[in-house]
C-alpha cells in the first residue's frame, strides 16, 4: 500500500557544517494526512524536495510503496513523480497563456504526445469538481483562489498515490484558503491518496490527521493532530 517512510535521511549542502535535514525515521501511513509545520529556514522545502524526488538526500532511504526513490536516477525519479505525486505550490506554478484545461493536461502531455479522451474527460471532471466551470479560460485571468483550485485539479489528474502541498493557502485570502483546504482534503480522500502539507495555516494543519514540527532540519514533536481524528 502507498505511504512513505524516511529512514536515516540527511541532507547536507556545501558551506554548512550541520545537515539541513536530519530525519532518522518518519513514517506516513497510506491515506494519512500529515501537516509539517515549523519556522522558515527549518528545511521544509528541502523536505518536500526529498519526499517528491526533486532532490536526492545526501544519505538515507525514501521508501514509497516499497520503492526507495533515493536510489532512482534523475530520469527515474521524474517518471516516478509523474505517476505517483501531485504537487501543489504556494504560487500555483500554473502556465500563463494556457487555459485551465490545458494546465491540467500539460504534465501528462509532457510524457505522451497524444492524450486520449479519457484524460480530457478526467480533467474536465476534476475542474468541475474544484468549481472551475469555464475550462477554456486562460489561467492568468483567474482569481488567486481559482488558480490554486486549478492547481489542485492538476495535482490529482494523474491519479497519484500522494499529494504534496507546499504552503497551498499562504497566498490566498481566508475564504479561498478554506475552499482550497477543503478541496485538498476531500479530493485526496476520494482518491485514496496520502496528503503531506507544509503549512503555517493553523486551520489547514488542524484538519490533518497528524502534525509534525520541523526545527533546524529535525522533527521537533510528532503526534496525533489536536483536531478531530478521521
Amino acid at each position: 500500500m502507498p505511504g512513505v517512510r524516511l529512514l536515516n535521511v540527511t541532507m547536507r549542502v556545501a558551506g554548512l557544517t550541520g545537515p539541513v535535514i536530519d530525519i532518522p525515521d518518519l513514517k506516513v501511513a497510506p491515506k494519512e494526512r500529515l501537516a509539517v509545520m515549523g519556522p522558515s529556514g527549518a528545511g521544509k522545502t528541502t523536505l518536500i524536495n526529498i519526499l517528491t524526488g526533486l532532490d536526492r538526500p545526501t544519505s538515507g532511504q525514501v521508501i514509497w510503496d516499497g520503492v526507495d526513490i533515493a536510489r532512482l536516477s534523475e530520469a527515474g525519479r521524474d517518471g516516478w513523480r509523474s505517476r505517483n505525486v501531485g504537487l501543489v505550490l504556494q504560487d500555483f506554478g500554473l502556465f500563463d497563456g494556457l487555459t485551465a484545461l490545458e494546465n491540467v493536461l500539460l504534465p501528462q502531455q509532457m510524457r505522451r504526445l497524444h492524450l486520449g479522451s479519457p484524460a480530457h474527460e478526467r480533467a474536465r471532471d476534476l475542474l468541475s469538481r474544484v468549481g472551475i466551470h469555464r475550462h477554456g479560460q486562460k489561467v492568468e485571468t483567474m482569481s488567486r483562489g481559482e488558480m490554486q483550485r486549478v492547481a489542485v485539479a492538476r495535482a490529482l489528474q494523474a491519479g497519484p498515490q500522494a499529494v504534496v502541498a507546499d504552503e497551498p493557502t499562504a497566498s490566498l485570502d481566508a475564504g479561498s484558503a478554506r475552499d482550497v483546504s477543503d478541496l485538498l482534503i476531500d479530493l485526496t480522500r476520494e482518491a485514496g491518496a496520502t496528503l503531506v502539507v507544509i503549512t503555517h495555516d493553523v486551520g489547514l494543519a488542524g484538519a490533518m490527521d497528524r502534525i509534525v514540527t520541523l526545527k533546524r532540519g529535525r522533527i521537533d514533536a510528532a503526534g496525533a493532530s489536536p483536531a478531530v481524528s478521521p
Partner: protein
Amino acid sequence: MIALRFILVDLRRHWIGSLAVVCLIAGASALGIAVDLQERALRIGSARAAERFDLVIGAPGSDTQLVLSSVFLQPSPLTLLPGSVLARISADPRVAMAAPVGFGDSFNGMPVVGTIAAFVTDGGRAPLAEGRPFGTITEAVVGADSPLVLGDQVKPIHGLPGEGGQTHRELSYAIVGRMAKTGTPWDRAILVPIEGVWTIHGMSHPHEHHADESGGSAEHDHDHDERSGAVSTEPNDPPIGDRHLGPPWTDPPGVPAVIVKAKTIADAYRLRSEYRTEATLAVFPAEVLTRLFATLGDIRLILGAIAFATQGLVGGAIVLVSVVHLSQRRRQLAMLRALGAPRTAIVALVWAELMLLVATGVALGVGLGFLGAKLFAIWLSGASGIVGPVILTGQDLALVLSLLGIAAAIALVPALVAYRQTAASGLRS
C-alpha cells in the same frame, strides 16, 4: 497539441525578441540565398545570350569589349573590320552564316543594329514572333520587348543609345517583323539591313551591285566620309528599295564585327585560329564569358563568405539571446520538471521553440532572397537587357537544409543548458 501551444504562448509573450530573432535569421539567410540566386541568374542569362554567337570576329582590340558590344550590345565604339575581311569570311566554304553587325545608331534609346536577314531568324532556327524578316533596305525587324509595332516608321539617330545626336534624314525604316523573346539585349534592338547602316553613314559604295559589270571595284573611290551623305542621289543608283540585300557582297564597307556560324565545331576552331592575326581578332564569346565569370565567381565567393560570416554572427547572437531567455524561464522549466516532465521533453521544448523561430526565419529569408534576386534581375534586365532567370534549384535546397542543420545543432546548446538544470533548482525562489 498543448506542448505546441506552450511554445507559442512563450513566443507570443516575448514577441519583440522573437520577431527580432526571426528578422535576423531571415536577413542572414536572404543574403546567402540572394547571392547564389543572382550569380546563377547572371550566369545562365549571359550564357543564353551568347548561345547564338558561335564565333565573333572583329578588329584587333579588347576581346572582352568585342563580346560585350556584339553579344550584349553594350554601346562602345569599335574599330571597324575591313570590308574585305567580311567578304572573305562570307565566301569561306566552312562558314554556314557570316552575319555582319553594324552599330552606331539608335532610336528612342533602342540600339539600331545592321545585319542580314538570315541572322534575324538565326538561319531559320528562330522563327519570328510576328511579321517577316526585312526584305528591302527600308525595312526593319524589332526585338520582342520593343514598344514599336508593325508598320511603325523609324528614323534612327546617329549615336549610341543615351548619347543623343542628329537624326538621320537619309533613310527611314518600316517595321515588318518582331523577333521572338530571347532574354538578351537583342530583345530591345531594332534590326535593320547592314546596307542601311552603310548607307546612312555614307559608307555604301554607290555602284556596289554593278561592280561585276564595271570590271571590279578596286579602282572605285570609297566614300568613307560620314558627312558626305547623299549616296542615293547618284543618278545611276537603282531606287533604294530595289537594292540587293545580304551576301555575297562585293567590296563591302567595313563593319565593327562579324558573327560567324561555322559548319562544324572543328571548322569553328580552325576559323578562330585563322582569324587571330594582327589584322583581326576572333573569339568564342563563351571563352570570354568563362573568364568574366571566373572574376564574378571570386566576387561571389567573397559575398558568400560575407553571408556565411553574417549567418555565423547571427547564430552566435541567437545562442546568447536564447541562453539569456532560458535563465528567465528557469522557474517555468523547473516547474515542468517538478510536475514530472522528463528532461528529454524539456530539451525538446527548448529546441523546438528555437527551431520554430529559425525555420520561420529561413523560410522568410528564402522568400526575401528570392524577391531580392528577382528585383535585382529586373533592374539588371532593364539596364542591360540580359534576362537572368531567378530560379530555385536543388542547390538552394541544400543550402537551406545545411542552414537548418547547423541551426539545429546550435539550438542544442541552450537545450542542453536546460537539460543540465536540476528539477529542484528552479523551485527555490
